[in-house]
């Protein structure tokens, strides 16, 4: 399992939700770090499960979310950084 960068995680997440983000009038590349996908209506509870599973399958990760504040699960910046850190810790 190779570590992934926060940018790689961010790119993957935004590619998956590209359509709903644009439908809300946002440009994915311009979304701020603190953009909350759940609060903005981009993703629902089921979508969270799908996203996590797809992310882990794509990068071959097995992430422990125990230390992640659930609130940050759908905020792009913190989530991307957390996944990246976890991937580095596991690869080490």
């Amino acid at each position: 399992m190779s570590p992934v960068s926060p940018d790689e995680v961010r790119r993957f997440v935004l590619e998956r939700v590209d359509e709903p983000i644009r439908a809300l009038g946002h440009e994915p590349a311009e979304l701020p770090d603190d953009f909350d996908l759940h609060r903005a209506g981009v993703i629902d509870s089921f979508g969270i499960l799908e996203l996590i599973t797809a992310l882990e399958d794509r990068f071959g990760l097995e992430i422990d979310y125990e230390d992640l504040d659930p609130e940050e699960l759908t905020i792009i910046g913190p989530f991307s950084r957390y996944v990246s850190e976890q991937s580095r810790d596991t690869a080490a």
Partner: protein
Amino acid sequence: MTGPRVFRALAEDPHPRRHLPDLVPWVHEAGNPYFDWLLGDPGTALAAIELWMGRPSSEIALTRLVALFEDGRPVGGFVGVAGADLARCAKADSLAALKAVGRKGRPELLRRARAVANLRLAVGADEWFLSKLGVLEPFRRGGRGRALLHEFLERGDAQGFTRFRLDVWEQDEQTVRLYESAGFITADATYSEELGRRLLAMRRSTL
């Protein structure tokens, strides 16, 4: 003869986890058949429920639970959640569900979660939501359910809520009648093909 009934918020209990053996059974039953169906089997569901109840951010966290004590034992209780908190709870509980089923169980969990993604209708941020209410089997038919429902309404009122919301399976006629007797009316309903039953969204307003 039983002692006096005492309602106690488990958030005030220094060791709430010691009550889990008496709490998990009715929480499990109150959430069924959904829990067992979503997580695959009763054993996995019970493990997930214990996990959820131990997490402060979960919808059914021990810290949200008000228990009815008789002779020092919690014989039933309810979980009340502010509508504004439910989104955060959903995130936390999604993570716990993934953990409970393990990697092998994920594809089926995702399939089932997709099937019921819209089963629960939206809860308003200004609503006090009754997530679970139940009584241990040996203690039923003694007015405890009604007393717990009354306590749920009282506690919501004390926090300034004027709108109350709950979900109940249509075929659970006795429970539907209990809620109606307390002023709840059916506002809407959804049908689950997978579970083969209708879920009623009930509301009550004190305005």
